[in-house]
């Protein structure tokens, strides 16, 4: 194993002198409301399903947080979701498809823009055609809503939502003696990070086990397993796993700003490390591509300073 420098320790756990490499994206926030929390959550979960990576899903999306009644546009239980994509065109396509298939279909729901701004993408202005001419437009407080008749009443959907420039691909890797230990450390990190706003962790449970590198021995494949972090390949590759490490997991973060991503990384790493010795956590590092692909570099040394 090649020895990579560490610059500090937190709670006895080595922090590697490395950085996460992240990419520019565009994002929007939607607010889904429903008759009760159960249905709002079902719609939000369905809408953000199969949205772990832009590599093959078209977008990265997840639930950001639950909103209080005072924050809810119509006073009903409300869930905020964030959707990230690589272009405004792709973002609009994904938002319209996902809201159309997963929220419009879910009983009692309504959808509202969760952010304001000059850059807009279509939402209800495209979905309204489902109303087959019976849809009704309503402008309230300068915002246009579409009321689409459905079998349980009306689906209320804001005509447009704003989008903003954002950052995708912030990350850190948790290297632990065992898989169970790595899982527990990540779960602890996720519990802390889910309290934050403006960020999502789009992979299942917020964690990816299939960290990838760019390219492959197969020419048609754009990304493949990051073999230097695979414990089963340690004897035959230039492994980056220290001795005694049996599993590595990656927490991936998308955020609306650099500060949001950095804050989430800091909170997650500190939470993992504070609980880490119980779970055999040995080292924390970050994933990058040598700094050549992504314009945003989150150095652990700076983030944890």
């Amino acid at each position: 194993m090649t020895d990579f420098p560490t610059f500090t320790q937190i709670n006895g756990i080595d922090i590697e002198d490395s950085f996460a490499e992240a990419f520019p994206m565009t994002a929007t926030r939607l607010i889904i409301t429903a008759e009760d929390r159960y249905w709002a959550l079902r719609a939000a979960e369905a809408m953000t399903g199969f949205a772990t990576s832009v590599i093959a899903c078209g977008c990265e999306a997840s639930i950001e947080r639950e909103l209080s009644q005072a924050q809810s546009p119509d006073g009903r239980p409300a869930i905020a979701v964030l959707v990230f994509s690589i272009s405004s065109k792709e973002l609009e396509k994904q938002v319209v498809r996902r809201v159309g298939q997963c929220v419009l279909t879910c009983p009692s729901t309504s959808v509202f823009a969760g952010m304001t701004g000059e850059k807009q993408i279509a939402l209800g202005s495209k979905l309204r055609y489902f109303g087959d001419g019976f849809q009704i437009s309503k402008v309230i407080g300068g915002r246009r809503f579409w009321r689409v008749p459905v079998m349980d009443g009306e689906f209320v959907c804001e005509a447009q939502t704003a989008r903003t420039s954002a950052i995708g691909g912030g990350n850190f890797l948790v290297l632990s003696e065992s898989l169970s230990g790595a899982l527990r450390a990540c779960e602890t990190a996720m519990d802390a990070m889910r309290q934050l706003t403006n960020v999502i962790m789009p992979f299942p449970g917020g964690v990816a086990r299939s960290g990838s590198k760019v390219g492959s021995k197969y020419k048609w494949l754009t990304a493949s397993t990051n073999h230097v972090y695979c414990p089963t390949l340690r004897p035959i590759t230039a492994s980056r796993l220290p001795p005694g490490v049996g599993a590595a997991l990656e927490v991936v973060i998308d955020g609306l700003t650099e500060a949001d991503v950095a804050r989430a990384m800091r909170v997650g790493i500190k939470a993992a490390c504070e609980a880490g010795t119980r779970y055999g956590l040995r080292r924390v590092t970050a994933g990058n591509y040598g700094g050549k692909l992504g314009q945003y570099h989150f150095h652990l040394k700076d983030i944890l300073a």
Partner: protein
Amino acid sequence: MSSLTLTLRADLDQQRMDLHGIVPDRVLPLSVGDLAKLPISVSGRACPLAEVFEISDGQRDRLVLRGALASADRVGGGMREGLLIVESSVGHRLADRMSGGELCVCGDAGHYASAQQRGGLVTISGNVGDFCAAAPPNSRRGMQGGQCLVEGSAGQFLAYRMRRGTVVIGGNVAEGCAASMVAGTVVLFGEFPFPLAVGMRRGTVIVVGADKPPMHVGFTPLESIELSYLPLLFDSLRTKLTADQMRLLTEAETYRALGDRASGGLGEVLWLAEQQQT
């Protein structure tokens, strides 16, 4: 220190005048000297503002108009932002082409109030004349945006061919209410004569009361319904209506009739059935 105030000279209170453009976004940045020279139309001829109003300089946070302004037309005309307070009744065509800001009239307004309003908030503490928020002659469109809140009553043809925006009438309305309405929202707390919303194309008329309203033959029967957009609408009015009015809106059972089907319309009349206090 009081705000910049224009007081109509007593000898001019019978003259018809046009106050389009005497609005905060245009007047407040001017010096008193420039303001004095600002031309306004009195009985069809241009006069310097100082010949018609006494100018009392003050804080530039709002513009106040005083005097017997019942003959002043197009008050608030062209207003885009700021606060204009009129301590009097006003003439016709209030808020003509107003697109933003807040206009408060402490008194009555004449005909065609808010008829060409495009945005902003107009509040009238008294009554309004005919064709409030309605299409004026030679126009196909009535009010096109913003909110107009009237504490008193409204004359004939309220919201005739109204295109967008919200009108709230605290008192009674006369014949022709919401006739040929194209879109927008009208809220009626008082009484209205039959028929209502004849020829309505789209939009929403909300009537509040204990008694089931008689509906024009072109409308479907009133049926009980839950509408999830109503909290959004009521929330937009929350700070502008009285607590009693908000209670009537939010605690009522909702019934809806669609029409006017006789003219192919898909508007809605909502009856918010006032709950009897036990």
